[in-house]
């Protein structure tokens, strides 16, 4: 059984339905990417999975039905969500951001902070600076580190490359790939930069106006000419 099983997921904002019944799986230790144009519903999918918006259908995590579970509770169960754009607390220091990340658990927090400081040395240098004063790349790293502080089994990461310089994006993806390979962290990634995503992910879902129009292994998708032409711009 997969770690995350999403079946017939529908969600939206108020009367407007954005997702129209999505099926999606993430296996233990797998890195899965959702591709799709702007406004396809990628962010909405992530928000629906982590319970930030109302949803119907079923979401099962680690064998437990979490369709009706509050967003606040999911962190404790092992889902961490780095939202699109600002996932940090701009008025708090870097240290406090990481402490907030560990809100749902206790013990060994100082050691964890040191560990992520080792992975992201630039955060360590700025530990007492307000998060709002960091560069975009540093903020994205902080948001990821903050999420990892909760010891998740599954990391939801929404467009980490948004607004970052290519070199920084490369760096962020290296870290995600390494965590996935070395520690078996499962990752559900949203990305617009298809070429980059196809390099790190094992499986791909292609989203179009709230429905999954194609899915398969990264290699399959990358070699399908029709899909390449229509979605990947090459």
């Amino acid at each position, binding site marked *: 059984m997969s770690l995350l099983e999403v079946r017939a997921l529908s969600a939206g904002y108020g009367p407007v339905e954005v997702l129209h019944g999505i099926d999606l799986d993430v296996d233990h230790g797998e890195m899965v990417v959702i591709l799709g144009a702007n406004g396809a519903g990628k962010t909405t999918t992530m928000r629906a999975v982590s319970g930030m918006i109302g949803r119907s259908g079923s979401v099962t995590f680690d064998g437990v039905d979490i369709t009706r579970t509050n*967003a606040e509770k999911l962190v404790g169960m092992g889902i961490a969500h780095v939202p699109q754009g600002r*996932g940090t*607390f701009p*008025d*708090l220091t870097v240290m*406090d951001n990481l402490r*907030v990340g560990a*809100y749902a658990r206790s013990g060994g927090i100082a050691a964890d902070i040191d560990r992520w400081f080792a992975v992201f040395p630039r955060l360590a240098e700025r530990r007492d600076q307000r998060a709002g004063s960091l560069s975009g790349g540093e903020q994205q790293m902080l948001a990821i580190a903050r999420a990892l502080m909760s010891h998740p089994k599954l990391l939801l990461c929404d467009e980490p490359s948004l607004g970052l310089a290519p070199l920084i994006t490369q760096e962020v993806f290296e870290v995600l790939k390494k965590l996935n390979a070395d520690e078996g962290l499962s990752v559900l990634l949203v990305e617009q930069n298809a070429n980059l995503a196809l390099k790190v992910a094992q499986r791909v879902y292609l989203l179009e106006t709230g429905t999954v129009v194609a899915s398969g292994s990264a290699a399959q998708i990358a070699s399908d000419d029709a899909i390449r032409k229509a979605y990947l711009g090459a």
Partner: protein
Amino acid sequence: MERFFQYLFDGLSLGSIYALLALGLVVVFRGTGHLNFAQGEMAMICTFVVWQFNDWGVPLVLSIILGMIVGFALGAGVEATIIRGVAKKSQAGVFVVSIALFLGLNSLAAMIWGSLPPEQLPGLFPDEPDDFQRIFGAVWRYEYIGVLAVALVLMGLLFLLFAKTKFGLAMRAVASNPESARLAGIPTGIVLASSWGIAGAMGALSGTLWGGIVGELNAGLMFTVFIYASAAATLGGFDSPGGAVIAGLTIGVGEQFLAGYFPGWIGQEMKLSAALLTIFVVLLVKPSGLFGSTKVERV
């Protein structure tokens, strides 16, 4: 010089009461982005509650603690039931509801305690005519010293709560980015209700201190204090707790100086107006208060 110290000291004591209430306004604003117009009336009701407990024979200090607990419950309850429900639908609605609370609480106090003879709320500190100390030639009454000390201690505790505890961290996180706070597992509902509760408890204390100085309790007890407190929150910056404290004390001292040194033009009647005008001028230079961040736009 003697006058200078007299004004300074009276101003600090009164200002510390404004600061307490202003801190409550700021805590609420940072949490939910609302100006709670009923803050003063909640404090007033709690002051009556303190008086009531005391009148039933509960020792004064214990009555005050009970009053603060009632204040916490009142604030948290109001946020969790009425404010949150309306805020989901319309921001203007929150304004109306906080005005409705203002009217309702005021009326309720008058209904329950309206026909009491002018009651004396016993002061927390000795306040016989000769209970004072002369320092630098100025009369420093024990009552005023006590008010200042209690207010400063409570504010100190609050800042410790903000800075050093896990709950304080959660409050700051929710104020900074509510969505990510939820994603980090912080129960935002409880945190927001608690910020209103903390504001209510601080209001209870500021009301009791003020009631002790005024002596006589009535439903209009906190109205002027509320204006001063809003002025302090504005001057300090609506999202800056430290700013509220500094501004509260500054306004307290400033109005004493203005009233004392210009008795003909300003005096007691015009001191509030003079203070408000000064704040207006400050805002022209710093439109979001002395210590506020500029992003604050919500009402």
